[in-house]
């Protein structure tokens, strides 16, 4: 048996002690967690203290079975495991592995050695992936100690800079790592992800919409598309993913953290997330929360990616209002039962809606909605939310005779990436340019003049004015220009589609 390689535990006089570090993800913030085990006393008890939830309490049975199945003797007498600090609620099955290791350390089966471990144990000792593995990587990197996680979590956690990752298949292998014997298993590469984004070249016609999509991608602008059903709004939204700038390493880790906190596995290669919750999704599903476990919502799962809300008008107003603040601030704090967690939510909001209840307003086929009905339909989307959309595109019914195929995703992506490189120097996405930054940008005289003229000729709100300036900046970026010229402003003006 595997366990025979290790020393047998001595008799435990006066009690013995062992400790292993693990990690808890509070939102995306990784907190170090100390898993302490004490063996002493004659009575045969295995108790778990330190605010564990019921799933954690069940760890006792799994740990006992896994320890025995891995060839160790489970210590006799009273075994007490404490998860500290007590104020962090511990949830789920991720602490099976550190509990088992700390018990083995206390029993002197293993030497005391600083490591960070996280994983669920099967009854036969195999290590299973667990929610929050990214947290273990971050804590281990911070402490500069080895990090033990399940093989399938390893590739993702390995993206954390400075993390020394040991993928462990079972408890025996984990024990060997702690004991400092045996080979380190190779990190199996993540499953190659095929970017399943459909190509822009599939879209016939819609030339203006394509241009809008390109601008939205380059500046990260929130985009509202409206048009009759079946005109291709969803089709366009999916193709946006293919032309977005690549995730950089820092962004990729943040995304992995959120997904890890949600217990979702995600390969580091998978590109920007695209989330499209249905309008019947609950508030918790959208913004995050939950009972005990604080789970990120769709707005956080779409962090550094696209949150696509199809049929925007069908979402309850309360839900849309709740989404507004996280989208604006780029993060949200979820609080439940005295615990709060910070989830990032820097998303590009893409929304699609029909222009009226019947969907055919503005089409040659007449719309039969009364103007009151249209008004009511549009009022469902509150003004402040509408204000967030820098770009509003009308996506009209496709002319079945249109044969003009456009550029491929590849071509458009090249321009977008070049533009993205420009704003990376600026330090933020163009959608996040605040008015003082906009004032400080270089504008040509003609550009200022045109803006001024438009400002005077129609009641443009301050927000509308800033929107046009942001979009102008992006158009200039796409054109490779340092200063915003008149033609950039003029093009941005044509996108100010009222809705």
């Amino acid at each position, binding site marked *: 048996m595997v366990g025979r390689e290790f020393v047998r535990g001595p008799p435990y006089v006066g009690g013995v002690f062992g400790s292993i570090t693990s990690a808890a993800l509070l939102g995306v913030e990784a907190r170090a967690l100390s898993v302490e085990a004490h063996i002493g006393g004659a009575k045969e008890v295995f108790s778990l203290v330190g605010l564990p939830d019921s799933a954690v309490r069940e760890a006792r049975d799994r740990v006992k079975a896994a320890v025995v199945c891995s060839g160790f003797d489970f210590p006799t007498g009273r075994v007490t495991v404490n998860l500290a600090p007590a104020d962090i609620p511990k949830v789920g099955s991720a602490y099976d592995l550190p509990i088992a290791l700390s018990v083995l350390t206390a029993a002197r089966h293993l030497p005391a050695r600083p490591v960070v471990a996280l994983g669920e144990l099967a009854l036969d000792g195999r290590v299973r992936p667990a929610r929050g593995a990214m947290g273990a990587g971050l804590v281990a990197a911070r402490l500069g100690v080895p990090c033990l996680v399940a093989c399938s979590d390893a590739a993702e956690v390995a993206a954390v800079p400075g993390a020394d990752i040991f993928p462990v298949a079972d408890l025996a292998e984990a024990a060997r790592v702690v004991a400092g014997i045996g080979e380190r298993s190779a990190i199996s590469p993540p499953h190659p992800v095929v970017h399943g984004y459909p190509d822009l070249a599939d879209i016939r016609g819609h030339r*203006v919409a394509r241009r809008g999509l390109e601008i939205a991608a380059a500046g990260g602008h929130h985009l509202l598309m409206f048009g009759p059903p079946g005109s291709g709004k969803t089709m366009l939204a999916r193709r946006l993913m293919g032309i977005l700038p690549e995730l950089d390493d820092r962004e990729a880790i943040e995304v992995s953290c959120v997904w890890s906190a949600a217990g979702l596995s995600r390969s580091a290669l998978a590109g920007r997330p695209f989330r499209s919750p249905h309008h019947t999704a609950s508030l918790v599903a959208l913004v995050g929360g939950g009972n005990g476990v604080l789970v990120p919502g769709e707005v956080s799962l779409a962090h550094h990616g696209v949150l696509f809300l199809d049929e925007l008008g069908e979402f309850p107003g309360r839900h849309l209002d709740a989404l507004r603040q996280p989208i604006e601030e780029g993060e949200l704090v979820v609080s439940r039962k005295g615990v709060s967690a910070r989830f990032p939510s820097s998303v590009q909001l893409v929304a699609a809606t029909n222009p009226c209840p019947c969907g055919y307003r*503005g089409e040659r086929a007449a719309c039969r909605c009364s103007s009151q009905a249209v008004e009511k339909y549009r009022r469902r989307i509150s003004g402040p939310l509408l204000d967030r959309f820098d770009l509003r595109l009308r996506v*009209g019914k496709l002319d079945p005779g249109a044969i003009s195929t456009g550029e491929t995703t590849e071509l458009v992506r090249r321009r977008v990436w070049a533009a993205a490189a420009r704003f990376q120097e600026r330090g933020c996405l163009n959608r996040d340019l605040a008015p003082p930054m906009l004032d400080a940008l270089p504008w040509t005289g003609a550009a200022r003049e*045109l803006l001024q003229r438009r400002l005077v000729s129609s009641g443009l709100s301050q927000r509308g004015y800033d929107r046009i300036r942001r979009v102008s900046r992006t158009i200039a970026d796409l054109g490779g220009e340092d200063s915003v010229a008149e033609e*950039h402003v*003029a093009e941005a003006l*044509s996108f100010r*589609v009222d809705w």
Partner: protein
Amino acid sequence: MSGYIDRNDPRFPADLAALSGSPDGLYVEGVLSDLPGVAVVGSRRASRYGLGIARTFGATVAGAGWTVVSGLARGVDGAAHRGTLEACGRGIGVLAGGLDRFYPAEHRELATGLVSGGGAIVSEHPAGTPPEPWRFPQRNRIISGLSKVVIVVEAAPDSGALITARLALEQDREVFAVPGDIDRQTATGCNLLIRDGAWPVLGTADLIEALSVVMGPPPKQRATAGATGGPLLDLVGPAGREVEELADLAGLPVPALLAALGRLEAEGAVLIEEGVVRLA
């Protein structure tokens, strides 16, 4: 020059003073200049079509640099004033009651817009005078009196707008009318005017041309639409076109087309609404 202007005051509009029924004086808030103007009047219960035309004409006349005169009433009057403001033009609103008594009250904003836009609101009655019904026809003689041309957009056969038109003829002003459907009550008045010799207005270009004959060339030449403007405007046509359609028709690269449209909109030559381009 807010305040009371006596009839003998040199600032009192000369065209108004020359009339037989001229008021003794005018209470003015704002500036009375660039007179005579062009009156745009019509029914208080105008159709959607009529309101659209009134607004467009208000913007066209004001955009060309003439002063738009109307009565700040519901319907055509309000729409004409609104068009004036949209074109950043100058307009005069003539009230039936005192300058502090608006009817309807919700047009207070339009009135402040006219004053702050370099125009004025005027009345022959002191502050506090209620806008009683019988004062409205009297008010109409000031509207036509301040103008050289009266454009009637929509009018029922017995409406106040027709009274204005009749007064205008008595005062030797030109009357233009917008033709309408022969079976529509609110259009009958205009059609009658045309039968009796009023000039039928057939569009914005036609309007500018006709006004130029009466008033002299427009003070402000319409901003030129740029090199691509002309043909693009022809493509848009009177019915309007979707931006997407234009992209297929114009033969321009999309960014260039969009920039041209943005310029035209800033110049007030077109309106882009919900993805559809219309001539302004």
